[in-house]
């Protein structure tokens, strides 16, 4: 495969040069805007540095402080972990359910699909504003409707117990975004399988668990990873609605990172914080990946269930 340059024909050399020219914008961006910054973040994480003065090397001190002497760090880990644990099942389960509905063969389905996807294109700030208004304890529409059936609604974002579930349930509204991707997965399932199941007399529930779900697992696997990473990065909702409160109930990790790095300018410590999050995200992704051969079905794989 690899040959020394002198053995290459002139045309090959010319093509290679054109190749490097064409990817050069990306290469420039990669080196200046990604590679060097990431290396710098790693270096800064071992320093005491407050943007005004020069970074001072302090070894592992930032990391030691984080794990032994920083209640806010644990608070942020706890809030973020709870958020992931609450919102991820919501997104996955309701996303699949919605995609099953949107896969029905009825007239005008495209119309429904278009409507359910709407919330997925709206941004974090607008959605946060909208939900702040919908979940107002006294005049919000949700509590107004609850009052109609005689239930006194909670104070939602303004109650330490309810704030986190409130933020997590906001993801329910955006579930159309992932439903569309599941839908693509569903439509790749060969129809012969359903016909065969029908002939064998399998009911709807059974067909779902023995055909639909196993064949959807590759899509589920990708979505699980993507949605998990997204959930770990929750920020805007808390920044706009709760500012991390009440009583730090929604003090998510990236909010802590933002405050340390860009408000208190403890840039060295913030660098260490963000690297810990990256390690957490990476190990969670690897964990999901590790378990995948037990539950992800790939076509042509004989041993799969």
């Amino acid at each position, binding site marked *: 495969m*690899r040959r020394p340059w002198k053995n290459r024909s002139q045309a*090959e050399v*010319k*093509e*290679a040069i*054109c*190749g*490097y*020219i*064409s*990817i050069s*914008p*990306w*290469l*420039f*961006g*990669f080196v200046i*805007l*990604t590679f060097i*910054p*990431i290396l710098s*973040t790693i270096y*800064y994480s071992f320093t005491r540095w407050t943007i005004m003065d020069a970074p001072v090397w302090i070894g592992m001190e930032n990391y030691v402080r984080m794990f032994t002497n920083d209640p806010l760090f644990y608070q942020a880990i706890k809030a973020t972990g709870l958020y992931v644990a609450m919102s991820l099942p919501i997104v996955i389960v309701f996303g699949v359910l919605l995609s099953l509905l949107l896969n029905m063969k009825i*007239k005008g389905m495209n119309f*429904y*699909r278009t*409507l*359910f*996807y*709407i*919330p997925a*294109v*709206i*941004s974090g*700030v*607008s959605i946060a*504003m*909208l*939900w*702040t*208004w*919908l979940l*107002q304890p006294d*005049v919000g*529409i949700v509590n107004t409707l609850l009052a109609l059936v005689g239930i006194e609604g909670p104070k939602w974002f303004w109650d330490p117990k309810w704030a986190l579930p409130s933020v997590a349930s906001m993801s329910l509204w955006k579930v*159309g*975004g992932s439903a569309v991707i599941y839908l*693509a997965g569903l439509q790749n399932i060969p129809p012969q399988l359903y016909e065969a199941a029908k002939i064998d007399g399998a009911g709807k529930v059974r067909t779902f668990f023995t055909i639909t779900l196993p064949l959807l697992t590759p*899509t589920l696997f*990708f979505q699980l990873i*993507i*949605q998990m*990473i*997204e959930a770990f*990065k929750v920020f805007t909702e808390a920044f706009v609605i709760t500012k991390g409160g009440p009583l730090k109930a929604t003090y998510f990790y*990236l909010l802590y990172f933002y405050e340390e790095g*860009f408000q208190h300018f403890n840039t060295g410590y913030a660098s260490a914080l*963000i690297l810990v*999050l*990256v390690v957490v995200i990476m190990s969670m992704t690897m964990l999901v990946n590790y378990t995948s051969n037990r539950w992800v079905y790939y076509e042509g794989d004989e041993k799969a269930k």
Partner: protein
Amino acid sequence: MKTQTQTISAVIRKHKIRQVRKSILTHMFMITLTLIFLVPIFWMLSTALKTRWEIFVWPTTWIPKVLHWENFSDAFTRVPMLRFMGNTLFIIVVKIIGELLAVPLIAYGFARLRFPGKKVLFLLVISTMMIPLQTKLIPLFTMYVKLGLNDTYWPLILPAFTGTPFFIFLLIQYMKTLPRDLDDAAKIDGVGTFGILYRILLPLCIPALTIIVTYTFLWTWNEFLQPLIYLSTYEKFTIQLGLEMFKGIWSVEWNLLMAATLATMLPVLLMYFFAQKKLIGGIASVGLKG
């Protein structure tokens, strides 16, 4: 004989009635669900058209007695929303130019040309798609401060000119589906390496380029974190920053706030309805972006 055909047609009719009933029930279910899904948007519009007293009235009115459309112009004069929208549009246009200059060129290199180290570099493109932006934010911020470029649009638009990895990946995949015979035929006709890209392949890539333009619009319009970090003068704010600022200043006037929020969503919604088929198809086909 006659009775037999009668019973058969009766069975068919019965079956048809059952089918019609089933489809009516399905539609009713779907419509109910859609309505529940869209209540928040309706409620936002309803609030945006009320007076500041009416929003606190009990029992709640779903449709305001008088539609106060002036709330929208009011919201736009309280905070220079139009200016923020203009700023954002400017950034979007420049970014689109950047992406359209960079991405086809880069994708062409990866999809069509042979050069040493291509596989490793392609893996790097893929892996940069996964890295959270926050990982490089602090060094980037200090770099731009040193260059005197913070509180300008440079930090926001410069990355577009180096190609967004997701778009590069998308276009590589798209170019790979175009037959290589096209390149060969053009080569025989004496078209140069880059001539093949700009005269032969690029016109065929228009569907993929449309997706890139649409996403650049949507993502930039919705972008919050980077403008928050880089922009400090409020005349330079983007629309999302402006909306956040609006909330800080007029936090009790929910009718105006909802008017502003709705106005912020409107361009995105229009863009979505304009390009929804391509957009949904685009995400589903790549299946990577959440």
